[in-house]
């Protein structure tokens, strides 16, 4: 195998696949990237068996072939090469010679035979979405995923294609974020998957390369074909992402979304975000809550920790309901405020043991459970 490639294109390609490596101890080849050269491009593939990524980079291929190399080290070396022109030359015994300017590296590779194949993009249920839109939807909910491994069902984002819309949901059992968009869903394509957290984070990283993406899924797997038409760093065709899904039943999230609105206030998102953020500066791991108090046209935010001190913030709002007070984990308040981009949001409250609900004029809802003091 022999090809010439632009250093920055090669580096960009390796950066796409770099995060997906398996445990070195169990299967050493999972720390490697599979490099295959054909026609006028090379394809780069990594997998950890749960998630696989493949991208294609344009290259001047002189002789087709394949080899696998340790991806982290290779990416570091390529990034540091002195000259933009890089030539890559692999011998049949998997030794690779990398030349750039006055630098030459000889790297020991492993043959392709041991590299686990990625599943084929099959005839599953499939939908085409806008990359920018999916990015913003994922960002609106992904912070609410659980990282508690004992609640593995919640370690991901739930995609629900049904009733003429796509809904994304994430929850850690104490808060839940939901966003929907209208989408034509043919009856036989309706379905849902729980996309694992790691896949969500890789997917989010890739969704700025082009216009559209195609998602296909069945009960066990999901795949994403991400077009790279906006990329100018050597990516060609699409990036392909193949992931296992979290198998199991996602909790019935509809039942925890309050049906009635009790007290609703309109807030300037940025201002409220800053107030809560400042108040939270005095909280500690042991006393991790901010109190939100509503009185006539006034919102007060207080926080304290016994060994440090206290903070008090106030905001003028339009409010004429009964006085009420409720405490929340500050991160639960801040996360949706940070993820949203709208200037104004609605916050609905009832009492100190009922959930608080953030809403925007789009179909976004974030339900957060309070902290019960005393």
């Amino acid at each position: 195998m022999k090809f010439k490639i632009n250093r920055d294109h090669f580096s960009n390609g390796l950066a796409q696949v770099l995060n997906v490596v398996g445990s070195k101890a169990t299967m050493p080849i999972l720390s490697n990237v599979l490099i295959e050269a054909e026609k006028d491009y090379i394809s780069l593939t990594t997998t950890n068996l749960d998630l696989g990524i493949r991208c294609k980079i344009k290259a001047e291929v002189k002789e087709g072939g394949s080899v696998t190399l340790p991806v982290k080290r290779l990416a570091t070396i390529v990034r540091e090469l002195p000259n933009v022109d890089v030539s890559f030359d692999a011998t049949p015994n998997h030794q690779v010679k990398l030349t750039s300017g006055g630098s030459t590296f000889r790297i020991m590779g492993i043959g392709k035979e041991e590299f686990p194949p990625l599943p084929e993009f099959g005839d599953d249920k499939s939908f085409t979405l806008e990359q920018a839109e999916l990015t913003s939807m994922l960002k609106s909910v992904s912070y609410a995923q659980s990282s508690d491994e004992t609640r593995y069902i919640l370690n991901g984002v739930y995609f629900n294609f049904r009733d003429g819309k796509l809904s994304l949901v994430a929850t850690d059992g104490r808060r839940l974020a939901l966003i929907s968009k209208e989408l034509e869903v043919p009856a036989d394509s309706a379905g849902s998957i729980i996309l694992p957290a790691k896949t969500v984070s890789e997917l989010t990283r890739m969704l700025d390369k082009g216009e559209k993406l195609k998602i296909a899924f069945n009960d066990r797997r999901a795949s994403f074909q991400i077009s790279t038409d906006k990329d100018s760093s050597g990516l060609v065709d699409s990036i392909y992402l193949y992931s296992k899904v979290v198998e199991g039943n996602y909790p019935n999230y509809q039942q925890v979304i309050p049906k009635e609105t009790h007290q609703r206030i309109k807030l300037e998102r940025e201002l409220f975000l800053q107030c809560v953020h400042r108040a939270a500066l005095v909280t500690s791991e042991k006393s991790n809550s901010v109190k939100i108090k509503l009185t006539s046209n006034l919102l007060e935010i207080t926080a304290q920790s016994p060994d440090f001190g206290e903070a008090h913030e106030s905001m003028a709002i339009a409010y004429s309901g009964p006085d009420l007070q409720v405490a929340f984990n500050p991160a639960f308040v801040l996360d949706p405020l940070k993820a949203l981009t709208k200037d104004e949001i609605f916050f609905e409250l009832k009492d100190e043991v009922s959930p608080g609900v953030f809403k925007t004029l789009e179909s976004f809802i974030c339900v957060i459970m309070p902290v019960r003091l005393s």
Partner: protein
Amino acid sequence: MSAGLPFIVHLDADAFFVSVELALRPELRGKKVAVGGRERGIIASASYEARACGVYTPMPTVRALAVCPDLILLPHVGKYGEVSRQMFDLCETLTPWVQRNSIDEGYLDLKPCGLKSTAEIEAVVRGLQARIWDALQIPVSMGIATNKLVAQIASKLRKPRGFVVVAPGDEAAFLAPLDIGKLPGVGTKTEAALQARGLRTVGDVLALNDREAEAVFGRDWRGMQALARGEDDRPVETEHEDAKSYSQQETFATDIAAFAEIERVAKRMIDDLLPKIREDGKRARTLTVKVRYGDFTQESAGRSLPEASDLEMPFYPLVTPLLRQAWTQRRPLRLVSVKFSGIEAGPRQLDLFSEDAEKRRKLAAVLDKLNGRGAVVKHGHQLDGKG
């Protein structure tokens, strides 16, 4: 100037459980008396007359009766907790700085009392010793020194009704002739090992040069030498330390082999302990089950919930697997115990999907209230079997 006075008092009730019982039955004073379970129990406390016959605590009752056949065995009757509280309340009339260490011993710091000489300190402590006897008929021993370590060793030196004052500066000289086993942390095994190396008294520790001391005591040899010199700067802590665990155990009248029966006992302990945890406004994360066989060998197993709880429900499913894990030998059990640890307090994050838990919490509060008023509302699993 006054900082040099011996302000720290260690109060140690003499044979506390027996003394409480004798206060109710003074005619038994001077006799060989012990408090403990009769059939399979252990001696919890023995009078000094009984101790002279070789009865010690904790000793299986059967053995105690063998070494001292005329031992008068009293059942647990007295209100130990109540008497203990009254005893420490009397201490607090003297100084606000009282550390209740356990039911029968604690420390007093007399610094806030404005006493100007060792003689004045002695006088007020003797007065306290007398008041405790007059009011409660509980004999106590007092150790007075400049720190907790020395005061504690002093109080135990001349029991019962001991009264030992160690003058400031005399700490090392006071400790030097004492058996090395009097030092905290030196148990019988360590004591025997040290004696084998020629270390019999506390003074022997200080006679070693640095290299010898390091060879004997390892890395912590400096700490050991400080102990031997009677150095200690721990303050008397007046705050009651919050409970770090809640536990209960039961010794059976006859060894039990039936899994279901043991399981029921363990669950009943859970039912007994959680109302206390709720009453204290706490939550627990970890449940540990311990089993003890007839020959006193024991095993235990524990497991933690992802989140602390104050409800019975999340802990019940742990009982069976933990018992299986701990009870590995196919032999009947003498004792089973249940311990809750990983105790948390304070604000509680509410859950989205746990409306049930909130309902259970309300129900538990109602049941706790009813049971507190003398009603008996039990969980179903306590009803089947012979209970």
